[in-house]
């Protein structure tokens, strides 16, 4: 074994030990999780998960539907119940009559739809489970235009891969892949709640 190989091995062992001991000391790991190379490695599993789920889950699989009796009596607010924003408060005061849903980006026909426009479109009602990333679940009844209908109206360009939702609240902007939405699964799990429900 050459001196260089020995050194590399020692370097590797030292690094492994450093990583192992840092992982052990969760309380002081702040740095480890912030390291770009750690993030890069952890991201690999996200890709593997996405590809595997895409392969394992049938494209037409729908979220389970529940009965009226299953509906949660206390549906926990996900995020805040009121948005600390003047524009939002003005819209809310007027029953969202002036509000418009903007559909833009990689679409053939960018849309601007009012609440009345949305209500004129075919709606679907479902009782499905909401799983919060925090770990809890609530069952609610949702009515609204299936997302697929909206996207068909706008005409997704083939190059569109992700959809980003802009909320009145600034922080949560979950993105989802177009594959999830254009399948019936997407349309059932992600229908748009009617604003007549308490805005959450």
């Amino acid at each position, binding site marked *: 074994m050459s001196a260089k190989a020995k050194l590399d091995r020692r370097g590797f062992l030292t690094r492994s030990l450093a990583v192992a001991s840092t992982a052990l000391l*969760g309380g002081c790991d702040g740095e480890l999780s912030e390291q770009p190379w750690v993030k890069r490695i952890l*991201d690999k599993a996200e890709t593997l998960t996405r590809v595997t789920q895409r392969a394992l889950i049938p494209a037409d699989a729908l979220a389970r539907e529940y009965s009226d009796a299953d509906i*949660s009596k206390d549906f926990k607010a996900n995020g805040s119940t009121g948005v600390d924003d003047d524009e939002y408060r003005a819209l809310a005061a007027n029953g969202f009559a002036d509000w418009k849903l903007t559909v833009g980006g990689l679409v053939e026909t960018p849309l601007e739809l009012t609440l009345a426009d949305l209500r004129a479109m075919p709606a679907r009602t479902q009782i499905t489970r909401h*799983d919060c990333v925090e770990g809890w679940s609530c069952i609610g009844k949702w009515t609204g235009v299936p997302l697929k209908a909206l996207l068909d109206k706008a005409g997704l360009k083939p190059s569109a891969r992700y959809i980003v939702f802009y909320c009145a609240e600034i922080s949560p902007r979950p993105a989802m892949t177009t594959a999830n939405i254009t399948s019936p699964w997407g349309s059932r799990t992600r229908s748009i709640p009617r604003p007549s429900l308490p805005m959450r």
Partner: protein
Amino acid sequence: MADADSPNEKREIVYRHSGAVRITHWANVVAMLVLLMSGLQIFNAHPALYLGSKSNFDDPLMSMRPMKHGEQVVGVTTIAGWSIDTTGIFGVAYMADGDYQVRGFPWSVTLPGHRDLATGRRWHFFFAWLFVINGIAYLIYSLVSGHLRRDLAPGTSELKHIGAAIWEHIRLKFPQGEEAKRYNVLQKLAYLLVALILLPLMLLTGLAMSPGMDAGYPFLLDMFGGRQSARTIHFIAAGGIVLFVVVHLVMVLITGVWNNLRSMITGRYVIKVPEGQS
């Protein structure tokens, strides 16, 4: 080779653990440690457990939460209706300046070591893949090589004498000589319980928490009685594995820490054979 301390014994070196068992063992140690710590980070995002499909926030099966006790905020852990004050450990912790933090498990045992659910989930899923790939490799090896049948499956006579084995363990009398070459019946049952029941249960309950997997494979929900039950079973099974690790480490310590460690690193295990028995 004669042992200096006991002239009536001789030492014999046996090859106890195959390379595959040693590698998968240590890979599992790393995976389980990260999974446990990142799992506690994820649990801390909502430190309560429920039964069924949904969370009944008023009546959790288990919870760690802050409560007002007069003027003082205390951490209360509730299990099946029984509440105990766990301030400083679970629920609420006071800092040096008198301010307090609301959290489930202490941040010293989570990964990352502060509230960061998104990063905790990334650690968890990365090491879940390592755990699954490693576990499948172990199971295939165990079946094909005969490790499962030869070393782990207890025989009928062993099972009949399980009472004696338990009694010997209670008195901390462990197999010596020839007998020490093989796993004893309690060891076999403990390893089988973990490898074939608890660890696969962790995987299945983990998958049952995925909304996507639930849509594709709704039997995951029915198997465990709903997503919240699956989450609860995931937590309890994790506790079972922690309990196993504690007992495992105690046994490693009291039956010869260096000998056990060496055998899991190099494969070689030293047994003491009384003279006349070879």
